[in-house]
């Protein structure tokens, strides 16, 4: 790695780390029912909301009620997003006069945004009206993120409470998460982004005359280009903060109006990892032992950093085919060198690689470069990060509750190895927790494997695989990894806006979201009902490097064992088939 790369990566990760403690503490306050500073402004509004909804603030829910609330909110969201897309042609704030979205694409998008996946089978600016983008998509960016965080908080309450059958109130958690965490943060970020040149406008697309005529899709010479604008900054802020990733524009954060400068790039990158990282500290605060939170953050980082370095090195080395042709791929003061195909020159190798790893580690899915064009190893890492179950940072809330599921399995295994019924944070892990944990790990894994299997042997699936050789397989595998784990990024090159892929991917998104959420809530309920066992000398501490190492090993081994055969037929064989660079 170049010195430049080391400096940039350290700067980004250092800034992130600096934010973890204050934000984590603040979120713990919010979910513990105390956030005096913000309550002074929004408290009356919050209370008015509960009154309007006929909800006593202290109404506690059992895990089943909580789960029912999660599902009903998601169902309602799904219906709203679907309907808005289908009728956008007749609604206002549609300056480009876009027609209704097709049923299968609407279905896919509605599922995608309610599951916090934000897989986009469509091109944003050419499909969605401003109203749809704001009222359907942006709203979902908030709601689905707040729901994920709420489920995490419910699980944390399962650990902290003892012999009770309630785990908090979902509606209260969603409202507080939105009002006191997501809204303030995205307001600040949106304003900062506008200062960098991200557009925020309701005007119709701008028509500009091209300096040089270009040949259009229909074969005619085009002299003008239509440049779409819209309420972009407001959507981009929450798209990153809520690990949603659905861009306003088709090109996502590679688009100059969505991510114009290196500074806007840094801010967005931080926003991707900000809440998932800080939630670790929230966890530590809420369970009353900060070391537990730091241990989980350490586990995430231990996986994140080496993979990040791997991608940067692989991309910086570039394509051996070009190298063998004598193309200069070395980094210098005037060029990034390496594999620049599909990358923006204003971001270069390092910031593109960092983004690619961050966006797939966190289940964000926004891109500032095209992952499809990465070297085989550079593309393998983002794919595998998703296949790990989106637990390395992961989605807001969902990442940490996913990692906690792995922690439960780790505790179980290590508990057996020290000859004691396993316990985590004073809660004994029994057969029920193991059953639910197994389900939560199995479901997304199964959807990736099965989805890709069906796609590669069905004519409808293979019809839109445009790349030859193992890369075509990699694209399909990537798509299902992304959808099942609610990431949303894509290897382009696969024609995914077909009824087959829209339907299949939507299905995997649903399973990947709810078959993890429901077991997590079931575990929360079961843990809350248990007694808390005080720690003794025979208890295995869960904040030590030893435990972190074992947790990482479990995550990595499960991920490797499940996907090694599939990866071998995709990126691994692609990599091994590359010519040696001379």
């Amino acid at each position, binding site marked *: 790695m170049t010195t430049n790369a080391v400096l940039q990566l350290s700067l980004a990760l250092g800034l992130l780390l600096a934010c973890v403690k204050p934000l984590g503490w603040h979120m713990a306050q919010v979910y513990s029912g105390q956030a005096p500073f913000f309550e002074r402004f929004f408290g009356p509004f919050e209370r008015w909301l509960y009154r309007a909804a006929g909800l006593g603030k202290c109404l506690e829910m059992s895990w089943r009620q909580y789960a029912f609330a999660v599902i009903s909110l998601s169902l309602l969201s799904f219906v709203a997003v679907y309907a808005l897309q289908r009728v956008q042609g007749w609604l206002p704030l549609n300056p480009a006069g876009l027609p209704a979205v097709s049923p299968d694409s609407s279905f896919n998008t509605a599922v995608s945004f309610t599951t916090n996946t934000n897989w986009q089978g469509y091109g944003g600016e050419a499909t969605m009206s401003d109203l749809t983008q704001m009222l359907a998509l942006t709203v979902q960016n908030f709601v689905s993120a707040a729901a994920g965080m709420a489920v995490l908080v419910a699980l944390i309450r399962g650990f902290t409470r003892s012999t009770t059958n309630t785990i908090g109130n979902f509606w209260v958690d969603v409202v507080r998460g939105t009002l006191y965490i997501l809204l303030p943060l995205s307001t600040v970020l949106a304003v900062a982004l506008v200062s960098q040149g991200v557009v925020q406008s309701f005007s119709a697309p701008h028509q500009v005359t091209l300096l040089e005529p270009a040949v259009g899709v229909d074969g005619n010479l085009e002299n003008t280009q239509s440049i779409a604008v819209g309420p972009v900054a407001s959507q981009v802020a929450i798209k990153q903060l809520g690990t949603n990733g659905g861009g306003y524009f088709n090109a996502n954060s590679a688009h100059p109006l969505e991510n114009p400068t290196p500074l806007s790039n840094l801010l967005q990158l931080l926003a991707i990892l900000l809440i998932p990282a800080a939630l670790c500290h929230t966890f530590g605060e809420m369970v009353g032992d900060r070391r537990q939170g730091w241990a989980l953050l350490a586990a995430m980082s231990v996986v994140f950093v080496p993979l990040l370095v791997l991608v940067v090195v692989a991309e910086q080395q570039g394509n051996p085919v070009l190298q063998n042709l004598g193309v200069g791929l070395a980094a210098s003061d005037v060029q990034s060198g390496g594999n620049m195909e599909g990358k923006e020159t204003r971001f270069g190798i390092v910031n593109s690689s960092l983004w690619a790893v961050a966006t797939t580690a966190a289940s964000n899915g926004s891109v500032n470069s095209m992952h499809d064009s990465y070297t085989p190893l550079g593309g393998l890492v983002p794919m595998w990060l998703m296949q790990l179950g989106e637990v390395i940072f992961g989605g807001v809330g969902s990442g940490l509750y996913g990692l906690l599921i792995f922690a439960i399995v780790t505790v179980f295994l290590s508990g057996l190895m020290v000859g004691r019924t396993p316990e985590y944070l004073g809660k004994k892990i029994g057969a029920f*927790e193991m059953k639910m944990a197994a389900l939560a*790990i199995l479901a997304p894994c199964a959807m990736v494997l099965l989805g890709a*299997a069906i796609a*590669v*042997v069905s004519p409808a699936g293979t019809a839109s695989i445009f790349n030859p050789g*193992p890369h075509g397989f990699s694209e399909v595998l990537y798509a299902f990894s992304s959808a099942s784990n609610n990431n949303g990024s894509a290897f382009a090159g696969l024609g995914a806006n077909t009824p087959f892929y829209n339907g299949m991917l939507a299905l995997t998104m649903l399973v990947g979201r709810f078959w993890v959420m429901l077991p997590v809530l079931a575990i929360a309920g079961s843990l809350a009902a248990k007694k808390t066992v005080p720690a003794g000398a*025979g208890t295995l*501490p869960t904040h030590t490097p030893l435990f972190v190492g074992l947790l990482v090993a479990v995550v990595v081994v499960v991920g490797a064992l*499940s996907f090694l055969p599939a990866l071998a*037929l995709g990126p691994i064989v692609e990599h091994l088939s590359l010519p040696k660079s001379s």
Partner: protein
Amino acid sequence: MTKTSTHLLDTKILGQAVAASFQKLDPRVQLRNPVMFAVYLGSILTTILWVQSLGEAAGTTGESSGFVLGIAAWLWFTVLFANFAEAIAEGHGKAQAASLKSSRMTVAAQRLSNLKGRVTEEVPATDLKLGDLVLVKAGETIPADGEVIEGVASVDESAITGESAPVVRESGGDRSSVTGGTRVISDWLIVEVKTLPGQSFLDRMIAMVEGAKRQKTPNEIALAILLAALTLIFLLVVATLLPYSVFSVQVSGQGRPISLTVLVALFVCLAPTTIGALLSAIGIAGMNRLSRANVLAMSGRAVEAAGDVDVLLLDKTGTITLGNRQATRFIPTAGIEERALAEAAHLASLADETAEGRSIAVLAKKQFGLRGRDLEQDQPTFVPFSARTRMSGVTIDGRAIRKGAAEAVETHVRTLGGFLPEDVRTAVQQIARGGGTPLVVSEDAKVLGVIELKDIVKGGIKERFAELRQMGIKTVMITGDNPLTAAAIAAEAGVDDFLAEATPEAKLMLIRDYQKGGRLVAMTGDGTNDAPALAQADVAVAMNSGTQAAKEAGNMVDLDSNPTKLIEIVNIGKQLLMTRGSLTTFSIANDVAKYFAILPAAFAATYPALKALDLMHLSSPASAILSAVIFNALIIIALVPLALKGVSYRPVGAAQLLRNNLLIYGLGGLVVPFVGIKVIDMLLAAVNLA
């Protein structure tokens, strides 16, 4: 129970186990273990594939029928090895059960139809009902479990304890329970039948060691779920590999889609077969280890709970200290000869048959050569200990000699116009502070001095408590002594805490308190008054010499009636869990190497570039796959001794223990198969098998 018949590699047991391995091929037996059932189905499938390959011209599937046969054969071996592991563990249990059964032959019982008139009728033991009274005379076998209501007899309990020395059983007190199948050696007993035939202690014991009634323990269930989930993941991985390979063959234009045989082989290698095969053997072996330690557990759950115990309640007497207090010193008051005090104390203790009383006589004899005189002509009047006076003694030659607690004697002499001298009071306090028990001796109104009785702490007990502390277990001493005495002994023995002046209620409260705080409590007990506490404790070990009530309340019975056995039980419980955990880790870690063997081999024709993953440089694709399958089968057999013996447990902190086991079974599990598969591959290549 004989302790010799359970040697690890008894040829008789081995022979039976081999036979049982084949009997267990019954699908109904296989269905009980999901992991091995999957392997079982794989074996059937590959056998069918082999039969099919015989009829086909060579080259249609791309693999020789010899290869398919090799895979099929080794998959069957895998199943058989798993059966063998279970059978050999059961074999050890059965051997123990057989020796028990021999003492369960039908016996005739002398049922009393009239208690007063001693009228008996002979009925088969199987016809006895609850509450029946039976008379058992010397040389007869006790027909059922029960409670002695009359008589004293020595009983040979070797059938269940393996201990040849007979024990005394008598009505009343804590030695009143008798076990069916044991033999009365001298005198007679009248026994009230307390269990129905078929539910007796011996029956339950036989069922337990035979493993017939073995229920899965909570951790075993949780582990089974984890293993099933892993199996399911690998099933998916393998099943989806077929479409992936079909597609890969299409796009690469070379090779063949992966064959069913290789898919099955891959699946069996990946599925956690090592732990799956050994899981039930580990459980059975754990119970066997327990019965080898002469402890009978009423359920496997109790054994597992023993590994989790946080607090150990131990009775002081017999567990921490040697049996009873013993006299160690005579301290006369000013103006009295030590010998005179010893003599008086000796006289007062002559009729005192308690161990303490005897120890006074012993001390008097040792120090002053005093002997029990023939007292008949002196016509002594012995005053037995009573709860009211809290004194005992003798009136002889007109001398009223009394001994008892300081307060009691003080009250006694005051009524006669005497007093407690200051030097005696000081001595009494000193003895109490030092953990001893002072007994004051008086003659008429005069106090002669103090006898010091001391608890003798067992040798080595302090080290055992230190071990327990390292294991994270807190020890609490239970004693009827006053707090001062208790504190001194607690300090000497090195326990963490003590409960002084313990009543059965206080014991129960203490257990509840600990449990409310989320702790798991273990205790031992023998008396009927221990029963409530035993019932409340999570792990309750009743002494076999104890009452029927205590045995019913506990979830384990120690046949040796040795209270320190709890420590051993905790070890066995922990070992049981550790063996499961370590072998699971080992099993999963093994998969990494198997991938590196099988994946490049399976796709050798489609993607030759994947050859780079063949880190072991195996001789051919066929031999690579076969080697992995053979390794997978052989490792089961190789680990059978470990499964039976259990992973060794040393009392170190949890983190240290985890680090050690991870190093051995985690890292070992990663490395061993690389070596093993390579060696098998070289052997196969050498004999040209594949």
